[in-house]
């Protein structure tokens, strides 16, 4: 029996030691789970979209694609990940009396097992090198995003010990008992050590072998108490991740009178959100990408996630590792298997995150994008805002006029709806309202509805963008209409500021208006990424299904198809840097069309800022921050982003979002490069640059859709 371990004295003691530790491991996990089952159940996602979930597992857990923003770290982590996984084979062999070896040792005369032993030797070296590099990074390099406390060094020490005791034991085994088939590295060192004599090498082998078992057992008990737990939880977390569009906040039923609105306490969190805390590796990628944190605000997405875990673990107080059996619990009333109510009802704001930090968030999603283990930070922060707004009416004072404006006059600036079409004044063509088109009986000829958005309707600077968009549509001969006074705010700011009530009010009204003109059968285009995201990704929660495209996509297509012709002169020697909007690039993957438009203008040279495409940096205007004062931190977010733009030496900063436009224009002005300075940097929407570059058009006789593209009458 246990022939593989014939050289190990008292081998069977492995079973109580390892499996005893394994039982403790399970009990600790079960104790965590006793809290998870008491918080809010997550809607069942586990068995939906299995193909996408398997794909995610491969992408995030096995290939770990998110790690490759830092290739050296990705390679290091692969060393640890593959090392641990491959060495697991050997460890399973140790603790099962040689079961894998028994199975894999027979075929091909033991070649498979020999190969695996060789592979384990290689991976042991890789894991040790990776551990050394990880330790070097923590002690010498000290990357800003890492926090290094005792537990982080303990983890590294455990890995080093677990791998090295096993590995070196094998050297001495080879030295004492002769070469091991396949373990070529150990055989090499064994050859060197053989000179010490059988007794010495045998003793060293026995000591190291048993040391390995004890370290392994201790490591197993250590793991579920700290961030190293991620080695198991990641797989579950990635499997259960949100598959709805990233820009779709959780739906909310406002009619449930008994419900807690939003997230207030630990118990209000869906269990997957608590589980996020147990998946967090404390790597700090989220925080290092957070624009609020980068500009000195207290918001720290990692701290929020770690705080949630801390609260969940605190709620385990009083739960015994091995709770009393049901009979004891019932007979003596000794219930020690449930978390205490007061701990479950501990508020999140004040424990895991400060009140100010909740409002610092621009909902840009940089944290979510950066997280290698698919933790969802933004949905939680908006959940906290929902509770503060809907239940306590607690929010920064500046938001009151925005809320009231959206509620009473349908826009956060509190402007009269009658001014919604002021931007069309003086245009050389007519901008028709959907109502006028319907009255004229021409709805069937309507190609697109241009959703103007409040910023382009009321903000002086953005009105020029609306004019440019309309000019491009007119030049391409597109039959389009606007809603005019019937349009209201899409609800994005209200929703992201936590005011779900106003969001649903506005969204419901807009869905009704759009359906009145059969817009669900047509295309909506908008120059606002926030309206774009909300109408496209969120209105479906309220029954509105619309096909909406951002103006950059639509205009790029018109240019590509030749419906918009750019003049041969172009813009000679114009260097432009394009600023990706979060809700366009990160949330909706629209990154190339704006660049295609700019690239199609002769003479334009495109340069990129440090943070671009999906890794773009927010302008500071998202998540309702457009209407809040920014006086915390050491600098403003738009100033930090402007700095990146200025560093490119581009003369023009192109935007594709009305908020980005305002934020960057102000940032440029504050940096002393505004329009009225000697050396101005121009901020312009891509549609404005395109409109400027258009070839003088031959008069377009008819704006109606050409035959064959007409849409059916509803």
């Amino acid at each position: 029996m246990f022939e593989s371990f014939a050289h190990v004295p008292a081998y069977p003691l492995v079973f109580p030691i390892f499996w005893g530790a394994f039982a403790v491991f399970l009990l600790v996990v079960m104790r965590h789970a006793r809290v998870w089952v008491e918080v809010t159940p997550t809607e069942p996602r586990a068995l939906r979209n299995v193909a996408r979930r398997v794909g995610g597992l491969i992408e995030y857990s096995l290939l770990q694609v998110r790690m490759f923003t830092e290739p050296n770290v990705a390679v290091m982590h692969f060393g640890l990940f593959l090392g641990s996984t491959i060495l697991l084979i050997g460890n399973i062999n140790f603790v099962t009396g040689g079961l894998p070896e028994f199975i894999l040792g027979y075929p091909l005369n033991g070649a498979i097992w020999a190969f695996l032993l060789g592979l384990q030797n290689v991976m042991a070296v890789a894991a040790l090198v990776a551990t050394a590099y990880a330790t070097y990074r923590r002690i010498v390099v000290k990357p800003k995003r890492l926090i290094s406390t005792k537990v982080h060094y303990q983890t590294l020490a455990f890995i080093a010990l677990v791998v090295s005791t096993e590995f070196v034991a094998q050297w001495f085994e080879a030295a004492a008992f002769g070469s091991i088939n396949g373990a070529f590295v150990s055989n090499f060192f064994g050859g060197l050590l053989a000179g010490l004599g059988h007794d010495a090498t045998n003793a060293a082998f026995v000591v190291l072998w048993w040391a390995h078992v004890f370290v392994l057992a201790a490591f197993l008990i250590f793991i579920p108490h700290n961030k190293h737990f991620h080695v198991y939880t990641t797989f579950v977390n990635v499997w259960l991740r949100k598959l709805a569009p990233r820009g779709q906040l959780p739906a909310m039923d406002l009619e449930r009178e008994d419900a807690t609105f939003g997230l207030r306490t630990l118990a209000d969190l869906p269990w997957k959100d608590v589980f996020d805390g147990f998946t967090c590796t404390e790597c700090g990628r989220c925080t290092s990408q957070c624009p609020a944190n980068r500009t000195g605000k207290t918001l720290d997405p990692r701290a929020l996630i770690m705080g949630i875990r801390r609260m969940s673990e605190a709620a385990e107080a009083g739960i015994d590792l091995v709770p009393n059996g049901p009979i004891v619990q019932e007979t003596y009333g000794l219930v020690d298997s449930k978390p205490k109510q007061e701990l479950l009802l501990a508020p999140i704001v004040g424990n895991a995150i400060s009140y100010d930090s909740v409002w610092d968030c621009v909902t840009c999603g940089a944290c979510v994008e950066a997280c290698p283990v698919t933790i969802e930070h933004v949905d939680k922060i908006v959940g906290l805002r929902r509770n503060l707004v809907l239940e306590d009416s607690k929010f920064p004072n500046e938001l009151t006029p925005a809320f009231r404006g959206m509620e009473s006059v349908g826009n956060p600036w509190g402007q009269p709806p009658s001014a919604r079409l002021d931007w069309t004044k003086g245009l050389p063509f007519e901008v028709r309202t959907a109502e006028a088109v319907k009255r004229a009986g021409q709805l069937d000829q309507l190609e697109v509805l241009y959703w103007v958005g409040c910023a382009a309707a009321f903000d002086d600077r953005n009105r020029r963008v609306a004019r440019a968009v309309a000019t491009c549509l007119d030049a391409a001969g597109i039959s389009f209409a606007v809603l005019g006074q019937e349009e209201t705010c899409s609800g994005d700011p209200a929703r992201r500021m936590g005011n779900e009530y106003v969001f649903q009010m506005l969204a419901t009204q807009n869905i009704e208006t759009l359906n009145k003109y059969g817009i669900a059968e047509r295309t909506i285009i908008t120059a606002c990424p926030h309206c774009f995201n909300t109408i496209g990704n969120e209105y479906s929660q309220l029954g509105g299904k619309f096909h909406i495209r951002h103006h950059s996509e639509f205009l790029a297509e018109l240019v590509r198809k030749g419906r918009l012709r750019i003049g041969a002169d172009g813009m000679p020697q114009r260097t432009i840097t394009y600023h990706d909007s979060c809700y366009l690039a990160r949330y909706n993957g629209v990154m190339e069309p704006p660049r295609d438009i700019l690239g199609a203008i002769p003479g334009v040279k495109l340069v990129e800022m440090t943070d671009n495409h999906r890794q773009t940096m927010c302008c500071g205007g998202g998540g309702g921050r457009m209407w809040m004062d920014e006086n915390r931190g050491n600098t403003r977010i738009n100033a930090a982003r402007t700095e990146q733009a200025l560093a490119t030496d581009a003369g023009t900063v192109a935007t594709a979002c009305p908020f980005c436009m305002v934020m960057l224009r102000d940032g440029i002005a504050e940096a002393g490069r505004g329009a009225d300075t000697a050396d101005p940097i121009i901020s312009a929407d891509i549609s404005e640059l395109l409109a400027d570059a258009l070839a003088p058009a031959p008069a377009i006789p008819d704006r109606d859709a050409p035959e064959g593209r007409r849409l059916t009458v509803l």
Partner: protein
Amino acid sequence: MRILVMTKPVPDPAANAERLGPDLRLDRAASPTVVNGNDEYGLEAALQLVEAHGGEVAILTMAPASGVETMRKALAMGALRGVLVSDDALAGADIPTTIRVLAAAAAIQEWDLLLGGLDTSDGAGGAVTAGVAARLGLPLLSAAAHIEPDEAARTVRVKRLSAKGYDLLEAPMPAVVSCTQALGTPRYPSLKGIMAARTRQITTLSLADLGADLAPADRQWPSRVLAVEPPPSRAAGRTVTGDPASQAREIADYLADRRII
């Protein structure tokens, strides 16, 4: 302490859509309706007072039946019940009638303080709250910037806005206070408040409940609106150009000419 606040539904000034119909009365369909600004400041002050001293806030409105919707907004802020005086015979009521009706309705409620706006943003008569006090024969503390009751002494002190600062007034309760913006920003109702407001009681009273002689028969008001004209458009502003020093001099001269500085 019981506080009754008079809240008038008015066209939302932000919508800039207020207009009169062909009968020269307010076209209520043209604009969204909100609680009159100065009334809302009074309501906020009332809510803060009961939060500090205990008691309850109720609201009193004279409006068409649709006024209930606007009253719900006030209830959502925290008022516990509402009284709506609504009667076809009151359509287009003038100021004296409004005063008589509101005073009669207030007289059958129990309260220590009656609050109302200094004026309303639609009618801008600026007489109703004062008129109600006169009609009830109670002290009026006008243009309040701060209200501080002393329950033990059964008195109330009010800081009254004046051209040069504040006057400090005191009167025995019950008393009537007319309210201004200086009382502070009204709270934004929470969803819980909005939901609670749905079930709060609004008692509707007709003219018959108060005494039919309060309003003239056949709606023949002594005063009538004859015509409505938009304000003349503003002349273009004057732009000051030149170097900063000469700009400053020009602006200073302009202000000095008009004895502003």
